[in-house]
């Protein structure tokens, strides 16, 4: 019975060009989707908070903001839904070597995510349609499943990614997977830190991006209460999550030191296993050395083990063939951490001013930086995923399946990559354009909103 399964692991050679193309295509579509996924998780929270404030205070500005954000969510959800679908296709189109063998191990969180996605789509449809037709409190309640299901989706999908980093719940004999325990696979040791890190990141991205729109508006002179609230509520939410995220990141680092020491070594560009390992910032990898970096002595040992004596495993502990590309992982890691601290500074700036004077910092530089804060948060998320994914290389399933064995051996994958890149380029431009278009629109714009069927005026 299992004999035909061997055909699934005996992969023909994919050309290097096709392998790179497949990796870039996956990176592109994941990197694109992740921004929308963050908005899909975070924006319903913002919308519900501000709608709730509107109901509590009877303040029309809150309600107007909630309505605007609901429109944006409706439109963005469409782009998020389809860009997420492509990913589920690509799991098979690009990585059949993984899915054929490990699909049954990793399937459960995805199946559960499918259900969460259903709930999200259904209740978003109900919520947007029911606006103004049911009592406000009932309406608010109908939006809560959107938030819960969106967050659950993020959790479940990241569970699957966590499994690729810490594969559990199966044994493998002669290339065939046996004794599968889907629950153990789903709740693997990497789940806690990865999902926490991602979900907090999603709230930060959504908060800073939405706040950025209103900061830009204020820079253009729209200094009214509507803009102030539109800026403050999302920015505050994101700012509260920022220090939490840094603590979660620290926790994640300690877990990775345990589960994937090679990934941590690459992120810190630590070549030699040592006690009292320094924390290196920036620099260039030349041969087997990191040069021109800023070093904080004992920093890494202190962070990981709270002691200068803690021994940190370096890249020299593993053969060259199973090391990830150090330069990319290290720079991505520094970028992520750098952006995180930049956002922390910005949050502290606002917190200090609000505490002292109950107003925004007067400097235009604050608004300029705040207008870009969403971009910084997106860069941090993209860089963080680069650390996770590139840092796992050359493995797709850590320690079990190499990426070169997971890729589709069919010829011509690079053509698909070129086409997909063009489509995404157009999609990006159009999405940004449409978001600008609907910014001040008060009429129905989301597909789920109500509109009348009317004849054109005959003139």
């Amino acid at each position: 019975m299992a004999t035909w399964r061997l055909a699934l692991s005996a992969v023909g050679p994919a050309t290097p060009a096709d392998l790179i193309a497949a990796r870039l295509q996956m990176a592109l579509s994941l990197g694109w989707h992740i921004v929308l996924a963050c908005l899909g998780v975070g924006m319903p929270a913002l919308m519900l908070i501000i709608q709730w404030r509107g109901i509590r205070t009877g303040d029309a500005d809150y309600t107007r903001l909630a309505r605007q954000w609901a429109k944006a969510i409706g439109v963005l959800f469409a782009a998020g839904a389809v860009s997420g679908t492509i990913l589920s296709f690509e799991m098979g189109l690009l990585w059949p070597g993984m899915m054929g063998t490990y699909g049954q191990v990793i399937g459960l969180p995805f199946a559960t995510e499918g259900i969460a996605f259903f709930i999200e789509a259904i209740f978003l449809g109900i919520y947007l349609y029911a606006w103004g037709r049911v009592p406000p409190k009932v309406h608010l309640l109908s939006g809560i499943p959107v938030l819960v299901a969106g967050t659950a989706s993020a959790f479940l999908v990241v569970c699957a990614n966590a499994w690729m980093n810490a594969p559990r719940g199966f044994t493998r004999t002669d290339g065939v997977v046996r004794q599968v325990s889907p629950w153990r696979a789903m709740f693997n040791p990497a789940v806690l830190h990865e999902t926490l890190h991602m979900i907090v990141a999603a709230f930060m991205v959504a908060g800073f991006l939405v706040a950025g729109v209103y900061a830009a508006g204020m820079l253009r002179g729209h200094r009214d209460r509507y803009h102030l609230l539109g800026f403050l509520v999302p920015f505050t939410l994101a700012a509260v999550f920022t220090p939490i995220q840094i603590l979660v990141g620290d926790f994640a680092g300690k877990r990775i030191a345990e589960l994937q020491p090679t990934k941590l070594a690459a992120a810190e560009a630590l070549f030699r296993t040592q006690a009292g390992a320094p924390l290196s910032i920036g620099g260039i990898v030349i041969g087997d050395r990191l040069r021109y970096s800023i070093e904080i002595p004992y920093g890494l040992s202190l962070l990981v083990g709270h002691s200068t004596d803690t021994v940190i495993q370096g890249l020299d502990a593993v053969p060259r063939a199973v090391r990830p590309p150090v330069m990319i992982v290290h720079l991505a890691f520094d970028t992520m951490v750098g952006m995180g601290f930049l956002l922390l500074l910005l949050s502290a700036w606002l917190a200090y001013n609000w505490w002292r004077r109950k107003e925004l910092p007067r400097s235009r530089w604050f608004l300029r930086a705040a207008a870009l804060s969403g971009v910084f948060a997106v860069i941090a998320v993209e860089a963080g995923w680069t650390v996770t994914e590139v840092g796992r290389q050359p493995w797709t399933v850590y320690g079990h399946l190499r990426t070169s064995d997971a890729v589709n051996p069919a010829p011509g994958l690079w053509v698909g990559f070129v086409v997909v890149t063009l489509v995404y380029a157009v999609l990006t431009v159009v999405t940004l354009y449409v978001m600008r278009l609907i910014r001040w629109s008060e009429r129905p714009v989301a597909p789920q909103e109500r509109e009348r069927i009317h004849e054109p005026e005959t003139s």
Partner: protein
Amino acid sequence: MDTAQIVLVVMWVGITLYALLAGADFGGGAWDLLAGRSRTGMARRKLIEQTIGPVWEANHVWLIFVIVLLWTAFSGVFASVMSTLYIPLTLAALGIIARGTAFAFRKAARELWQQRLFGGAFAISSILTPFFLGTVAGGIASGRVPPGLARGNIFTSWLNPTSLLGGVLAIMVCVYLAGSYLCDDAVEAGRPELAEWFRARALIAAVLIGAVALGGIAVLRLDAPQLFTGLTHRALPLVVAGAVFGVGSLILLWRRVYPLVRATAMLGVITILWGWALAQYPVMLPPSLTYRQAAAEPAVLTATLVVTAIGVALIAPSMTWLLAVQRRALRDAGTPE
């Protein structure tokens, strides 16, 4: 019934619902293309938009559900299909992106030229996506996807007579389903004159489907003999029932009994899909790989079924509510202020 069989049935129910619900949404896109010039077609396009708007995302999720079930419960089949048929599936995926985003963006667009551009992208991708999915079905049904990674020919596996038949039939079924739903919806929205317009064209579509299906018998006999044998023996009752429903829905459409047209059109599609399944059961990848050989371990199948059962308990009432909302939206849209 063993667990693998149950998962197989659940998956096929998912495919059926995807065809009935999302198929009609794709068909709506095709009707959008046929709806006439900007001005004359406006009310028709608005009706299409109204019927698709609140539900298409939820309808679309059935595809994801089926894909995920397939890769969880029959991982090897998933890998074989995706790797060999990666060209039509990539094109279908791009069609799904274009369809969803263009539909959402069209409503947000203000200028006529923008609405035309997004509308065009929406309509064309609504036709191409079911076509490519149909070629995939044809490739599998005619035994052109061998088990294993990219073991089949990446071109002839979907550029062949059965695949083309599958693609054309998929488009036409979507068009007919949407047409019959739209007739009913137009009456519901208090716009019977719109229903007349859809009715005339849906009648033509029904006759064309009949012609293609008759021609398809010859194609399958030559190109997919194993499927042909199954359809003419074990699945014959379903094939006959499909023909009866098809003719019945044509007559009912002629007599303007729209709610029944909707029901018979759906039953027609159900019999086609289950006829195909029955004709090839227990084989998943013809000629010989059976679902039993391909099934995941029992622990995985059980877990999947548990999750699915919980999911159904949550989704069924919510979905019913959403569909009720959609019907109410239609009635409201038709009534004057």
